[in-house]
């Protein structure tokens, strides 16, 4: 599968970031494995350590398996002013995990991130590609429940 993703792009080093995004999105655990790194290194003809350098520089990549749904709560000042700390506390209680951890059922990983650019509706979080704004503790509970039900 990883080879197939690589082949969508020309074997140039400047496609690395796009290839890594696609591999990570396709992986059910949202991470980039050591094997994937080796495959990409071979395809682009670059050393694996260069890829690890890139992987660890950008915050959106993970080298460890994560949950099915990545929750990224914005911790930037506009959200902070509107009470993102309470939302974080609520999420920790609801999920029973700390920041950077995955729930036991593998459904959620809780992460913090820099500004998501939806500050007019602060506090904001992103779950995978979807934005949720004007968060309140009740709203967060509803959103998490809904995702749990969908499973």
């Amino acid at each position, binding site marked *: 599968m990883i080879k197939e993703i690589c082949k969508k792009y020309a074997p*140039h*080093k*400047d*496609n*690395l*970031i*796009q290839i*890594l*995004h696609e591999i990570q999105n396709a992986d059910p655990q949202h991470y980039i494995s050591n094997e994937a790194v080796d495959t990409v290194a071979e395809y682009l003809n670059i050393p694996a350590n*260069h890829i690890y*350098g*890139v992987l660890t*520089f*950008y*915050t*959106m*990549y993970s080298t460890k398996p994560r949950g099915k749904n990545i929750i990224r709560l914005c911790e*930037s*000042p*506009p959200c*902070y*002013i*509107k009470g993102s700390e309470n939302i974080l506390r609520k999420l920790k209680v609801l999920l029973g995990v700390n920041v950077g951890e995955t729930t036991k059922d593998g459904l959620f990983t809780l992460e913090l*991130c*820099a*500004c*998501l*650019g*939806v*500050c*007019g*509706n*602060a506090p*904001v979080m*992103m779950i995978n*590609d979807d*934005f*949720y*704004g*004007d968060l309140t503790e009740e709203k967060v509970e509803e959103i998490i429940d809904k995702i749990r039900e969908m499973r």
Partner: protein
Amino acid sequence: MSLKRIDLLICCGSGCVSAGAIKIKDQFHSVLKDKGLTNEINIIETGCMGPCDYGPVMVIYPEGVFYKKVTPEDVEEIVEEHFLKGRPVKRLMLQDEEEKNYLTNKEIPFYQKQVKVALANCGYIDPESIEEYIATGGYEALGTVLTTMTSQQTIDVIKKSGLRGRGGGGFPTHLKWQMVHDNPSEEKYFICNGDEGDPGAFMDRSLLEGDPHRVLEGMMIAAYAIGAKNGFFYIRAEYPLAIKRIKLAIQKAKEAGLMGENIFGSNFSFEAEVRTGAGAFVCGEETALIHSIEGQRGNPTPKPPYPAVQGLLKKPTIVNNVETLGNIPTIILKGAEWFSSMGTQTSKGTKVFALTGDVRNTGLVEVPMGITLRELIFDVGGGIIGDHKFKAVQLGGPSGGCLTTQHLDVPIDYESLKERGAMMGSGGVIIMNEEKCMVNVAKFFMDFCVDESCGKCAPCRIGLKQMLEILKRIDSGNGKEGDIEELQRLGETISKLALCGLGQTAPNPVLSTIRYFRDEYEAHIRDKSCANKVCLDLMHFEIDKSRCIGCSLCSRKCPTKCISGSREDKYTINQLSCIKCGTCMDVCPVKAISKVPGMHPDVKAKREAEAIKQQNQDE
């Protein structure tokens, strides 16, 4: 075939989508279908309309009725009352202070002082339709430039307009262009910087989402002026909708023959593609951005060489911000004089600002340069939410500075802001009320910059960390005499020595808050007191015994069991074990518990005793 009688414009910018706009749109589709009205009414998804706080918002033409905070339950009523019977739903309209409804979107004060140039089409057209963009005059500027003007003439128009970069520094756009134009290199590149990362800024996202063809047209005009055949949109991965829209715009422009070989029958050929970031604030810096496009870590490199001389793949490269490009088609169409007639001596045209924080109308606004902060915050922004007072405004994100009430009449332009220790930045305006602690805010911004520092140069990597440690020390009640001076010394050094813009400007929030709120820093250090009761170590909770009814609820709910007492003696908090979670205050039925500024004497005494003990051990 049937004529449409209503255009329903639903804002589908990320703000409104996060508030549930998609559900509303689907609901309209299904209700209109049920009632057999699909032939009469157009549903159009637009980009950001601006007043995000009221999301989901929509405008209904031909009347121009504006609805706010629409829920799926409201849809049936809107269709039944407004679409069928012609009676707009009053309770969903915006009201003024005397509860009079604003009948159309043009009457709303939020829009009145605004002049929309870059955002002209945002919230007015369907961003996925190239035809609607063309209907507003789109691609006319590109056609005019390619068929009637030389590249030098194009640069001259921009020069005359006085346009300066909208991404932060405010470098004159034409100077960059001229440099690359004059470079004889065969290969040149044009990059649109869509790596908007300043906390509190979201104009680039809205423009890319709401009017992608405008940015694309601006890029093609610029590429023609400098002689580039290839362009890149570098957009942060946190903006999936913007990425989708710009990709679609590129595809539609190609299909229409507006991009590719010999555009408008001229010798100009152009291709563009989209590259995404992966979560690194520093990639908004142009050299870091170029490395990221090349598939490397986004570390900045020293300038010179400037990208205009040696940029992407070592070729001359222009990096322009999204909003800058958004101004270009209109400048070409309406002329340099029109553009430069707006603004101040040094800053021409309009600027988009993102209003956030404790302001009534959060959202996106575009105003002429030179407007005062007062007009921006109180007239356009509608003032402070609730019964609060304005205290400070942070302009320009983590690189900017805090200004205060004494600056409300300062005209907003690049130079006036810089003189006072703030900066235009990308246009993020974070407004704070009197309950905010400026030391805490400064610490927060510093924390952000430390997180986002790429670690390449020592002043930024080590220096910012030291500043953060001092701020944490002050914030936790361990501040010392001389800390303020040390922060200033470090800040000024880092400003001079850091490699890139991120490091050079990172001390600004601290330096500007020291400049305007020095008394707060002093109170934190000397009196061990946070007047606003924000810094937890410098405040405490107290139970007012005259009001306490001895119900024991606080004691039972306290997670650390630090509240004791009885019905007769009332309750007291053991300050040494209190973790300041605030649960007791929330549960007290008679509101006998309150926050009090200052470190509690018991805690102070304990800390002093520990310090002495430590000292003795060290000796």
